[in-house]
């Protein structure tokens, strides 16, 4: 193994950064291991049913205990998909606006504003969501739609409290937009000017040009979506304040539900009273690893045909 760079300096440098890379990967593996190890107990008791049933029976008698977190997995994915569906158009429009249209003096301020949004503690969003967003959505979005379109399964649940998948999804969408937007914005900004000229030279309007240029940065958009989804599915406090915390698998956007992370956060405090609940919560957490893996594989699949220059 000889290459042009195998001088001593290069090797020393390589050796000195290696521990850090190993550390990061090692921590990830150990964490995964901890989740596996702690989940074994519930897998031995219930097998795969921990993921495939919707039951939550906490009992003093370990024999009667039974945990199935399907509703929470469903709620996590459902609310995160809503979040991405909302965040994607918002973040693309915002990225294009900031780069192409915002007056150059204001550009940096828009970017700073989104950076602040991204950095806010999530409890801030949660409180705002519970006190402002949920009542607003309930009165001005959910009830009007429910009153007219309740025959459609998506709108078939009466939004009595307003705490629902939709509320969680909208709040998450707002929260993850800055993250998706900054990735898309930077990629859009970095498009070489020669391609902008090329697009306009073939008689494109601004809208058409933007469409073609966005297709050029599709990998960044996919990356933005994956990041947004990851942030959304991992979000805990804000979601648990607006999702309703109810074991519920319902197609309606207006139905209350649960998410994995809010389930863990809500139940962990008293889980130690029970024989199996801690293990069940670890298993629930493990499912998020699988969902994350699946989403990343999906992203790679979408980009599979892409070749780089």
């Amino acid at each position, binding site marked *: 193994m000889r290459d042009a760079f195998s001088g001593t300096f290069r090797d020393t440098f390589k050796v000195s950064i290696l521990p850090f890379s190993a550390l990061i990967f090692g921590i990830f593996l150990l964490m995964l291991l901890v989740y596996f190890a702690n989940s074994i107990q519930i897998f031995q008791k219930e097998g795969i049913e921990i993921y495939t049933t919707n039951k939550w029976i906490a009992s003093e008698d370990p024999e009667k205990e039974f945990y199935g977190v399907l509703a929470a997995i469903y709620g996590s994915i459902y609310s995160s998909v809503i979040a991405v569906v909302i965040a994607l158009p918002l973040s693309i429009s915002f990225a294009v606006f900031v780069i192409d249209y915002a007056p*150059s003096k204001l550009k940096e301020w828009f970017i700073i504003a989104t950076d602040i949004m991204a950095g806010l503690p999530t409890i801030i969003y949660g409180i705002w969501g519970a006190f402002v967003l949920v009542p607003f959505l309930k009165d001005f979005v959910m009830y009007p739609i429910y009153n007219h379109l309740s025959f459609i399964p998506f709108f078939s649940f009466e939004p009595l409290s307003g705490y629902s998948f939709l509320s969680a999804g909208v709040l998450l969408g707002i929260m993850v937009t800055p993250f998706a937007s900054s990735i898309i914005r930077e990629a859009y900004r970095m498009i*070489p000017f*020669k*391609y*902008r*000229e*090329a*697009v*306009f*030279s*073939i*008689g*494109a*309007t601004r809208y*058409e040009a933007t469409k*073609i240029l966005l*297709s*050029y940065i*599709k990998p960044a958009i996919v990356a933005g979506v994956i990041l947004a989804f990851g942030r959304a599915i991992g979000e805990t406090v804000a979601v648990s304040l607006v999702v309703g915390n109810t074991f519920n698998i319902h197609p309606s956007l207006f139905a209350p539900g649960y998410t994995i992370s809010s389930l863990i956060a809500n139940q962990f405090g008293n889980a130690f009273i029970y024989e199996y609940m801690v293990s069940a919560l670890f298993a629930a957490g493990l499912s998020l690893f699988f969902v994350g893996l699946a989403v990343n594989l999906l992203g790679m699949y979408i980009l599979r045909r*892409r*070749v*780089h*220059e």
Partner: protein
Amino acid sequence: MRARKSKDRGAKKIETAIETAIETAIETAIETINLNVYYNSNHVIKSVSLQIPENVVFAIMGPSGCGKSTLLRAFNRLIELQENARVEGDIKLYGRSVFEMNPIEVRRQIGTVFQQVNPFPHLSIYENVAMGLKLNKLVKSKDELNRTVEWALKKAALWDEVKDRLNDFASNLSGGQQQRLCIARALALKPEVLLMDEPTANLDPIATEKIEDLIYELKKEYTIIIVTHSPSQAARVADFVAFLYLGKLIEVGPVEKIFENPAENLTEKYLTGRIG
């Protein structure tokens, strides 16, 4: 090709003489009237008035930074993509001011090939050519689209090399092929004028020769305005030459006249390599 060109030279001289004689009768494709371009307060093009006849190769030559590319981009209003650019004066395409036309229409009629080879790397060879046709709704059916794409690729002398791999990414072509793809992309819109901004500056000599051959073929049907920093390229491909220096039009005329008997001292200095 070189041999053919030098053989043609004699015949061309007569042709040029005739052309000069009847210049007023020849249709003018592009005319600039007292054209000024500024970048912020920087005066880049200074009162340029030019007449470019149709179906010729018209070369704009000059040293780097003299404003050649800027002038070219003014013709089809691509200059307006530069936020700080300001254009004064008028540009006429077949007698009609481009500033009274929709810029999209201007760019459809005046195609551009760039110095930096820029096919869309994420689109297929086919899509690169088809894109402009679709955007401008120039074809009515899938069949017509296919035929026009094939026609454009043939015009750009690329069809034989890519006909079996039309769905391959444009980025997989060689540099010279990519540049011919850009020519096909421009030709597909059936423009009247083709602007070429140093189209061979980033290509190897063989690819350069292919492009120059192509220019020779294309001038039968198109008015070609080519920017070059190389006087020898201007001599090889052009019928008319304009010499631009520090944003000013120094001299313009038939290629033989400029190269053999320049009227201006500056032109002679440039051609003999004393400036530039």
